[in-house]
């Protein structure tokens, strides 16, 4: 019974403020809704509450110092950001990395993509009340975090990829641990699938809600699972293959309706495809160099330093120094397999830095920046120019536009955030639905504050 029919009643819409601090694990955003009862008439999205000035800080730092800032952009899939930035700088230099590095980067990127989708679906299921699905998915994410920790040393903010290579090679036993983690993740995903995909309540809340059409999605510049759920199969890994994606078999799941249920199904299918990619890459990866057995000719580093301080250098002649456990994976033998042979961009192996004067000078020139204050440093200096390098992030095309002026600091680093245009198109997805539909729609957007506001 619309109140406007009775001439004594005047009705008007209500403004409701949702956020900035609201009980969803998505971060901070403010939706100013115009409501007519429970129906959403209009929506105004306010962002910027997590603006941490990534672009300004990267202008103050050297090229390698930007890498920790890139970790915190899309913090659920940090390795993809690292890879994107380093590949943009490598494109500026024009250097190519060894095969084993490419496979390692692909494996870790896909594992990051799985953690991204697990967090997204888990959080959005929790908001609909499916707390068990959330707990299962976060447990699966823990298995993958343990894997990432064994390779990089950190669970979340890894800073693993370097310009011209990666920090260190894979540890012993990585392949078995990965296959086991993938098996456990697959089992948990099967459980969640049985809990959610054909669940009457879940389908009722997600089907035909938050619909966006193909033309609107393209007009807003949306990419990623959001666009693929409307029917356009655009994936950067297929369109502009980088690293070794052209040698791996995987499918791109495409939806039809463009509603929340399609996005959920796209993400679940993408996780399976990512795990397939990891298994294929583990089969195809070229073997790393085997540690040469030196038959007792290895001396631990601390002992070597003591002997040298006493002046007993005959004890060191002909022996190899075993580096510190924190440098595991970055020994001189393994260096050729994981780093490009490019003196301008890649730090020398530690045995060279401490062993001979050319290595020391190379290291010094690259680490000390400035070069004008008598410090003698040089830093990493790509040639003058500008590049744009797109990679496939968890939400869509993540592009890095780097402008270099020939000095050791980047002149401009611009990140094309994949969820920025999706948030711009959010009012279209919400108009005409009820307040209760905002929650699953917003969950399926997978807004990551670090990437949106940078």
């Amino acid at each position, binding site marked *: 019974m619309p109140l406007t029919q009775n001439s004594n009643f005047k009705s008007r819409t209500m403004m409701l403020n949702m956020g900035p601090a609201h009980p969803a694990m998505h*971060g901070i955003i403010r939706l100013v809704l115009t409501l007519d009862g429970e129906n959403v008439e209009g929506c105004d999205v306010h962002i910027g509450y*997590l603006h941490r000035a990534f672009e300004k800080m990267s202008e103050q730092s050297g090229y390698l110092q930007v890498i920790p800032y890139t970790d915190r952009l899309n913090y659920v899939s940090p390795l993809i950001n690292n890879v994107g930035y380093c590949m943009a700088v490598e494109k500026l230099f024009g250097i190519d990395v060894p095969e084993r590095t490419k496979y390692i980067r692909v494996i870790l990127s896909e594992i990051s993509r799985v953690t991204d989708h697990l967090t997204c679906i888990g*959080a959005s299921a929790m908001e609909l009340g499916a707390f068990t699905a959330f707990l299962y998915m976060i447990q699966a994410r*823990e298995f993958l975090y343990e894997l990432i920790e064994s390779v990089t040393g950190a669970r*979340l903010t890894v800073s693993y990829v370097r310009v011209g290579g990666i920090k260190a090679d894979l540890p012993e036993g990585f392949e078995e641990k990965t296959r086991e983690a993938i098996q456990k993740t697959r089992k948990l995903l099967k459980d969640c699938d049985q809990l959610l995909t054909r669940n009457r309540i879940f389908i009722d809340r997600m089907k035909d809600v938050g619909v966006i059409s193909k033309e609107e999605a393209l007009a807003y510049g949306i990419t990623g699972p959001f666009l693929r759920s409307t029917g356009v199969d655009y994936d950067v890994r297929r369109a502009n293959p980088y690293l070794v994606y052209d040698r791996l078999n995987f499918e791109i799941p495409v939806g039809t309706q463009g509603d929340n249920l399609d996005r959920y199904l796209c993400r679940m299918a993408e996780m399976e495809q990512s795990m397939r990619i990891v298994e294929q890459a583990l089969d195809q990866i070229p073997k790393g160099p085997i540690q040469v057995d030196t038959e007792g000719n290895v001396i631990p580093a601390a002992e070597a330093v003591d002997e040298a301080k006493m002046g007993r250098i005959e004890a060191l002649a002909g022996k190899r120094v075993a580096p510190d456990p924190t440098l595991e994976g970055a020994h001189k033998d393994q260096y050729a397999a994981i780093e490009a042979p490019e003196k301008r961009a890649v730090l020398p192996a530690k045995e060279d830095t401490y062993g001979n004067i050319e290595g020391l000078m190379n290291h010094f020139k690259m680490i000390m920046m400035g070069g004008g204050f008598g410090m003698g440093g040089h830093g990493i200096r790509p040639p003058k120019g500008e590049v744009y390098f797109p990679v496939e992030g968890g939400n869509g095309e993540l592009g890095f536009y780097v402008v270099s002026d020939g000095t050791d600091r980047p002149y401009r680093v611009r990140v094309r955030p994949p969820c920025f245009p999706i948030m711009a198109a959010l009012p279209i997805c919400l108009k005409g639905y009820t307040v209760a539909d905002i929650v699953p729609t917003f969950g399926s957007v997978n807004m990551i504050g670090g990437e949106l506001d940078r």
Partner: protein
Amino acid sequence: MSEETLNPTGGFFTSKINEILGWARKYSIFQYPFVTACCGMEYMSTACAHYDMDRFGAGLPRFSPRQSDVLMVVGTISHKIAPVLKEIYEQMTEPKWVVAFGVCTCTGGFYDNYATVMGIDTIIPVDVYIPGCPPRPENVLDGLIKLQEKIQKQKQLV
């Protein structure tokens, strides 16, 4: 709220009541997770199955400041959200405690720029600082235990 009078003078009964109230308060923490950034992922990991926070009694997040007693500020605070944080702190009722989770809330982290608050203790009083970028879940549980010790030692009756 940080009155730290240890062992209040008074009789046997007031100190016993103090102890009991402290015991009750520390094992039934209702948190308000003010999650902004990457630390939120480690908060999720700590709250979930692997490193459970529920076994410490702190497992139920109340998403309203009026119903919670610990404000966990998780993630970087920018100048745009700082007034909101202060308002939420003021909406909470006594007794209340604040945990600064992550180095961005402790001192600002490496975001020394025009947009970031260098430590939330410039805006609201903080009880426990948990550094780390992001802190491991074991660190978070350590911080939680320290908060519980602090709650136990406090003067409970006004």
